[in-house]
């Protein structure tokens, strides 16, 4: 990650504007507590407590919030810190934690197809994210295929088919209730046969505490590996930004059972800030591939840690 101007380098200003708009509430609150600090010569413990609470309200979790605030406590010792200085420290903290993890998905598999298995709890945005990723890969001139591996939920297949039609991406699907692993296997055969570069495999949402359903994911992995030992090449966990601390348990279990290799966080266009990513980064260190900022195909953005951190503390421009 580069310094300062990197937020604009993406050339997708809309994202920043939207992300920042989404984070407005946090920003407002954070600025409020930071404004309290301006008039004082040193940072008062009470002000730091207020700041800590702001970070907690951004879903960073009590532990990470305390860590960041402690850093500010030290800053007080050094000397006078103004509002901008405090913000800078918070941005530095968060960026330092997240920067090493920003890594877009890349199509690297040889032989093709590059297989991406998409997993997560119910309703986080898996199917939509698959459509968005398909769109992204198409723009990079890759031949894409979808596998409708959610054979359980009503109209899940239809939902992916609608996206497939819009994109002109073929969708491999079975009847409702077909075995998801079997379908994944067949999809891979078809992707190979038709020379696709990327195969995106949708799965039914499942809560991580349901062992039976989780084992099904392990089975899908095994079946894919039969045709190519290195498949699936990526296992993407889709996290919903509105989810609280339970996201950590989601990452832990999905990583263990489904071999998650990276994260996409959706719904960052709301007021939820997804602060849990900070704790997740520290605990698990999984790459963050992209963020979802809306329901349309174009609403997927590369994860930009500095922009994320800056928006979190309400830094302008």
């Amino acid at each position, binding site marked *: 990650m580069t310094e300062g101007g990197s937020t604009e380098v993406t050339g997708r200003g809309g994202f920043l504007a939207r992300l920042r708009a989404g984070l407005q509430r946090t920003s407002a609150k954070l600025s409020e507590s930071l404004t309290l600090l301006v008039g004082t010569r040193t940072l008062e413990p009470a002000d730091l407590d207020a700041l800590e609470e702001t970070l907690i309200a951004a879903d960073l979790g009590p532990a990470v919030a305390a860590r960041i605030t402690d850093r500010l406590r030290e800053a007080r010792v050094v000397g006078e810190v103004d509002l901008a200085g405090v913000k800078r420290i918070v941005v530095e903290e968060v960026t330092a934690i997240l920067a090493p993890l920003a890594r877009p998905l890349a199509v690297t598999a040889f032989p093709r197809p590059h297989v991406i298995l998409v997993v997560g*709890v119910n309703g986080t945005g898996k199917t939509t994210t698959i459509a968005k990723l398909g769109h992204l890969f198409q723009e990079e001139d890759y031949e894409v295929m979808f596998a409708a591996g959610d054979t*359980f939920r*009503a109209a899940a297949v239809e939902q992916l088919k609608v996206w497939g039609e819009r994109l002109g991406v073929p969708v491999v699907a079975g009847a409702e209730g077909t075995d998801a692993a079997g379908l994944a296997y067949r999809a891979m055969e078809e992707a190979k046969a038709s020379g696709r570069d990327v195969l995106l495999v949708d799965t039914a949402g499942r*809560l991580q505490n349901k062992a039976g359903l989780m084992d099904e994911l392990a089975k899908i992995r095994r079946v894919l590996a039969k045709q190519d030992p290195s498949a699936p090449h990526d296992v993407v966990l889709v996290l*919903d930004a509105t*989810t609280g601390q*339970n996201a950590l*348990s989601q990452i832990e279990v999905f990583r263990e059972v489904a071999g998650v290799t990276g994260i996409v966080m959706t719904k960052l266009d709301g007021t939820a800030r997804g602060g849990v990513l900070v704790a997740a980064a520290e605990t698990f260190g999984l790459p963050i591939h992209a963020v979802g900022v809306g*329901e349309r195909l174009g609403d997927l953005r590369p994860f930009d840690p500095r922009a994320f951190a800056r928006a979190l503390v309400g830094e302008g421009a």
Partner: protein
Amino acid sequence: MFESLSDRLNAVFDKLRGRGALSELEVRAAMREVRIALLEADVALPVVRSFIDRATERAVGAEVLKSVTPGQQVVKIVHDTLVETLGAEAADLAVDVPPPAIVMMVGLQGSGKTTTTAKLAKHLAEKRRKKVLMASLDVNRPAAQQQLAILGEQAKVATLPIIPGQQPTDIARRAREAARLQGFDVLLLDTAGRLHVDEQLMAEMEAVAAATAPHEVLLVVDALTGQDAVNVAASFTGRVPLTGVILTRMDGDARGGAALSMREVTGKPIKFVGTGEKLDALEPFHPERAAGRILGMGDVVSLVERAAETLDAAEAERMAAKLAKGGFDMTDLLAQFRQMKRMGGLGVLASLLPGLGKAQAAMKQAGVDDRTIGRMEAIILSMTPKERARPEILNARRKIRIAKGSGTTVQEVNRLLKMHADMATAMKRLKKMGGMKALAGLFGGGAEAGAAPPPGLLPPGLPPGLGGPGLPPGLPGNIRFKR
């Protein structure tokens, strides 16, 4: 992973235990821990604040200070305050009005509106004998209307025919007309997911509400929601006349702090909870259960209900007799594993059974989870009856044989043995502390209702007087906080 709420509370109440009286200072110290615990349970910050204030005010009082067992009082006060905040017992839908009663579902994307719409329809049709019509106003998400139509077929509930291209308010009006003309009692309106900051969609929702004057407007919220719950609750409350909240994904392992946030900010009752993807996975909301869950004290009532359904009475008797003698061998452990599996796995059991936190931690450390239970079972099954009764005779040679026989490794055999030893120690301690009767009660044996729960298995500091939340003493009766 973060410390669980019950562990924290245990730590707090450990400290408070055995004192004659509680000082204000001590209460505040305890409340600081409660605060962190609530935050980790995803209760929204402003809600945590007001909750702690209320609980502190009630705890720091003459009555408490004079009390003989103050630690007990604090637990009770926290719990009672929580139950109060969570609100009155479950209220069903207000659909006994001149037909058609209109029920509108609203909420963020993916919160579970469409699924819950179908669940409610099924509930109203089957339990309340209503003639129900469902209509999807979701013109955004691909195949959303089709999803509801399929669910309608599954639930055997009528859905409004889809007219492609029609806009939400028009669909709503058409649905109301259809319901009126065709004599439906209830019309359920599923709407598209929307973010509360999306002005256009929020306005659309207002327009639909204005056009249909719904009798119920239900906010569907994911139980996994974090701090954002307050923003969501406040914004939706401000735009439509909410009448209630439905919490979905309560079958997950989140503490469900969102329940408290929603209740407090919307001021509306939580009418139902969703506990699965299937259409019958809808339950009334029980504040006591939710409180126990948020506090990590376990959903005792549910556990007992489920246990009553799944426990094998004969096996329970045997277990009780065994425990009374103080033995806990491999055969008992095997029975435990099987019971856990029947009761919905380790995850469910652990989240339901209070005080099992430590045992669960031990098991987790030993690598036991739902997936490894099968292997553990296999290990025990590969032991001879003598080995099962006296695991201490297992030498290296025997272990190798057992590992081979069960398709596991000696390491795994050792882990199982260590876990068994830990559990046996816990049982022994329990016996010394005189909690045998109540423990037997847990397994369905002959304990009398109201027997003292065994201190060892309870969150320490949750003393016998509190009865209920510790262990269900005697199945299935008398499992509440004494008031």
